[in-house]
């Protein structure tokens, strides 16, 4: 999409399509997985055609989500390297939650919270893949029972970490106005960039 004068491009088309593919697959995998997570959520299996279909489809949703995440991961990982400034930002995170944005140290393209979300998603998705394989018996019926026991436990734990991380991720996008358009249109306003990512704003506007 074209960016106007008072806008800055934050994500190109490929990155955005990749992001939304992951998002759709996340909802498919999460809803089909939560159906088996707790009896109170079993009704979700109806969305996928009943318990057996849910069991058949869930691993594929997960696998495709992992593969599409890999694309975004490789694209964004160098921008999410943890630095000393991130530590300082995180120490001030309480102020952020109280709505005192002014107290936060200036950040580049991503703040420490966003980087944490990025790495938590990457790690939990990797764990979900590795542990999920252990009890995907349609393809891998021969793993020993002790491995399956570790698998189901860690799969559930990683799934919860991922779901909680996504809740934080979505909430942040709702909370900080002007953020969602970065993923829906690709561009953000200069005002948004100046306020939320001043160092990135400087990078983007230097020499222009």
């Amino acid at each position, binding site marked *: 999409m074209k960016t106007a004068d008072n806008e800055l491009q934050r994500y190109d088309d490929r990155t955005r399509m990749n992001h939304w593919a992951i998002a759709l697959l996340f909802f498919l995998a999460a809803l089909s997985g939560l159906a088996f*997570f*707790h009896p109170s959520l079993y009704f979700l299996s109806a969305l996928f055609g009943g318990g*057996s279909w849910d*069991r058949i489809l869930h691993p594929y949703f997960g696998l495709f989500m992992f593969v599409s995440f890999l694309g975004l991961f490789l694209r964004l990982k160098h921008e999410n390297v943890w630095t000393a400034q991130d530590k300082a930002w995180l120490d001030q995170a309480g102020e952020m*939650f109280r709505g005192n944005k002014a107290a936060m140290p200036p950040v580049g393209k991503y703040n420490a919270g966003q980087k944490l979300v990025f790495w938590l998603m990457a790690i939990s998705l990797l764990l979900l893949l590795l542990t999920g394989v252990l*009890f995907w018996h349609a393809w891998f*019926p021969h793993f020993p*029972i002790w491995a399956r026991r570790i698998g*189901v436990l860690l799969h559930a734990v990683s799934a919860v970490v991922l779901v909680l991380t996504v809740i934080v991720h979505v909430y942040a996008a709702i*909370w900080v106005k002007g953020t969602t358009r970065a993923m829906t249109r690709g561009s953000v306003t200069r005002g948004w960039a100046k306020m939320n990512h001043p160092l990135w704003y400087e990078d983007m506007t230097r020499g222009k």
Partner: protein
Amino acid sequence: MSSLQSLDIAQGSATTTSSPSVRKTPEVAKLIDISSCIGCKACQVACMEWNDLRDEVGTNAGTYDNPNDLTPSSWTVMRFSEVMVKRDAASTTQETGLEWLIRKDGCMHCADPGCLKACPAPGAIVQYGNGIVDFISEHCVGCGNCVTGCPFDVPRISQKDNKAYKCSLCSDRVGVGLEPACAKSCPTGAIRFGSKEDMLEFAGTRVADLKERGYAQAAVYDPQGVGGTHVMYVLQHGDQPELYAGLPKNPVISPMVWLWKSAAKPLAVAAMVGAVVAGFFHYMKVGPVESKEDEKESA
């Protein structure tokens, strides 16, 4: 295999409310007296016949075990163990001796069934009021979690239809007042069926008899780690159940399964719902983060 009107359900998998339980049925049990077993496999044949199961013909693995393992269509298997057994001091025979121990393996019908605990499909595994644990195959989604939950490695998932199978203790026969097919066919009376109380009493007389014959450690196998079982063994060497093709000494539902199902999941559901609610109230309290500059520009 199927739910029975004649048997009340005491508990069902993935069910958080009470099952209908107005009737009180006495607990039943099958008692397998290993010291009376001659390894004829009539019980295996009776099981195949009553349940109308035909396993594929396998290969000989060097023992009398046939088939070599439990399968989706072999719900009971005689396991033959040739072991050197240390005789106790009271015995008049030599220190160690060769013994051929034959254990009829199959579902133990635990009072606290690990399979039922691990199953995510509502009502796919039930425990009847009489203690029998049964797989209701039409509700099974084929996830294989019962395999993870079982401390005895009993359930088998069919690669054909992805359903879990195991011994039903002939719940269809028991529901109409008959004994399980294996018990009916046993020519030596090594397999008995009745109320758990009666079976424990009879087992006591068998143990006393074995002790008189020099098996000082003879005992009933009714492991309390799973709340007791509705299939019990009389073991000549009650102190070494492992001799009997690896029968676990203190079977319990794996603590990992407990942690997964009983602790982590309810907490996690609370955490996920809590996170959404916390986000909602945070927004209502603090309000959105907006850049003032854009407002001016657009104004």
